[in-house]
């Protein structure tokens, strides 16, 4: 479903990603681990087209999308949520989801009717609001809801585009343990045919949802395998999991 071939990016003398090759099957849930500065978010930015790689290819559903801009890849079914909330703060929760759903259903450019009143948009908003548990807040301004709800909405806006592949950059960033557990249920309830690529620092969540774990260190893939193998990997413990294991 999503493949990278030797994806590389440097900023000056610093190699942020080095020959990263990944292959995600349809419906696979892969978590990317790695210490701060390992190149995880830069990898995401290259996948969605926000940063152009120096070398390598990105293939989505069999199509080479390396030359496509962000919106072109989004139209083909690649969606993302951000580590820092990237919402439409001046709008309500329903309008946030409605904007994304309007794009999905091709109403984003019409001048004849209110896109938010269309049946298909309404259905998508309702479905996604239930998926990400924001239904009680539909009327609320985004700036008025709690941080946790905004994190859920962040994922909801990405989901409302009905993606084939959803990239989530630290969905539980900044939320407490209780909310983090809620995210576990949320992720498990997502359709099984949706391919997920998640950057996550919450190890419990990462090991609970992942089919596969990839570890980046200094921009390189240093581990690629099952969660069980990851738990047993000495290399992983050395570079990343020591603190987690001790705890």
């Amino acid at each position, binding site marked *: 479903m999503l493949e990278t071939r030797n994806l590389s990016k440097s900023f000056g003398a610093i190699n942020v990603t080095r020959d990263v090759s990944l292959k995600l099957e349809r419906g696979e849930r892969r978590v990317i681990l790695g210490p701060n500065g390992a190149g995880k978010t830069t990898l995401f930015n290259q996948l969605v087209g926000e940063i152009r790689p120096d070398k390598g290819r990105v293939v989505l559903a069999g199509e080479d999308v390396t030359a496509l801009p962000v*919106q072109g890849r989004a139209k083909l079914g690649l969606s993302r949520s951000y580590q820092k909330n990237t919402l439409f703060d001046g*709008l309500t929760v329903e309008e946030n989801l409605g904007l994304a759903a*309007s794009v999905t259903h091709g109403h984003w450019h019409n001048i004849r009717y209110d*896109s938010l009143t269309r049946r298909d948009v309404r259905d998508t908003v309702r479905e996604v*609001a239930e998926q990400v548990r924001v239904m009680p807040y539909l009327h609320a301004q985004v700036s008025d809801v709690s941080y946790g709800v905004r994190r859920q909405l962040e994922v909801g806006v990405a989901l409302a585009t009905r993606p084939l592949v959803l990239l989530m950059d630290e969905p539980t960033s900044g939320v407490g343990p209780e909310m983090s557990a809620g995210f576990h249920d949320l992720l498990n309830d997502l359709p099984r045919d949706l391919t997920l690529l998640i950057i996550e620092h919450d190890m419990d969540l990462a090991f609970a949802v992942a089919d596969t774990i990839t570890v980046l260190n200094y921009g390189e893939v240093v581990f690629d395998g099952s969660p069980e193998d990851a738990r047993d990997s000495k290399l992983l413990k050395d570079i990343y999991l020591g603190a987690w294991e001790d705890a």
Partner: protein
Amino acid sequence: MFRHTSLRFWTLGLIAALAIWRALTAEYFGVETVTEIAILAILVIALDMVAGFGGMVSLCHGALMGAGAYAYAMLTVKAGLAPPMAFAGAVAVTGAASWLIGAVCGRSHGIYFIMATLAFGQMAYSLVFEQPIFGGDDGISGVPRIDLTIIGLDLNDGRTFAFVSLAVLGAVYWFATHVLQAGLGRSLTGIMHNEQRMRALGVNVWRIKADMFGLSGMIAAAAGALAAQHVMFVSPGLLNWTVSGEALVVVILGGLGTIIGPVIGAIVFVLLKHEVSAHTDYWHLVVGLILIAVVMSRANGIFGWLEQRLSRLARPVPARDVIANQVRKDLAAKGSLEDA
């Protein structure tokens, strides 16, 4: 995002009633003032569409209005086209030019967008001023008004012209609010709030900006074609950047991003101009002081101040919250509202 509110409906009704009353009962000067306000209001609605809902603060809308006026004058006086055709032609040509300006400038932001639009405006001003075909400093005179005698309207009558200008203003208000609530307008608002996210959702950002700028330019051109008919004369001064600056002042004075606010701004601005200039040449000074007071009040212009004080009337009318209402109805039908 544009929302109809009770306050907006009431304000619109009050303005319409007052305008009709003035157009019916006023003497010559009062009727001319109504026409002047209507034309300025059309221009500032056009500007508010892009500045208030897309963050595209344009300093070329005066030039777009001037382009519409010149296009109408050229097509009627020089090309001999029938005025209705010339009106449509002026709107179409200026709309196309505006689309191009939006497509180019839409790739920049903030101060760079402002400067880019100013550059386009000044290029248009220079072209009209320097090229003999446009009449240079003398402009073009003898611009005819549209003949509507077939439906019993004589536009050479100032009162009738005022009513037609008000009708055009009403149509423009409806069109602007309609477009802003349609997919294009909502996408533009999304871009203003978070351009990066809209792109990530799959929206072609520059296309949205260019299309809305094109529509806005068409409305500005309609204001220009009306202005040309009103005074039956066009001159390069119409395209001067100060016209764009004044339009921006009017939008901020009335309330950016409200559509009805700029109409109020146009009324206040024109009335101040006529009333204060009767006593002093420094009427701009008075407008400036009022503008500073409005900006310092932290309200969004005069209409924003009204909204703050009449907050109950400023809530969106219930019909607007379509999705949430529908969702609640559907859930209630399923008996699962409590679960939600």
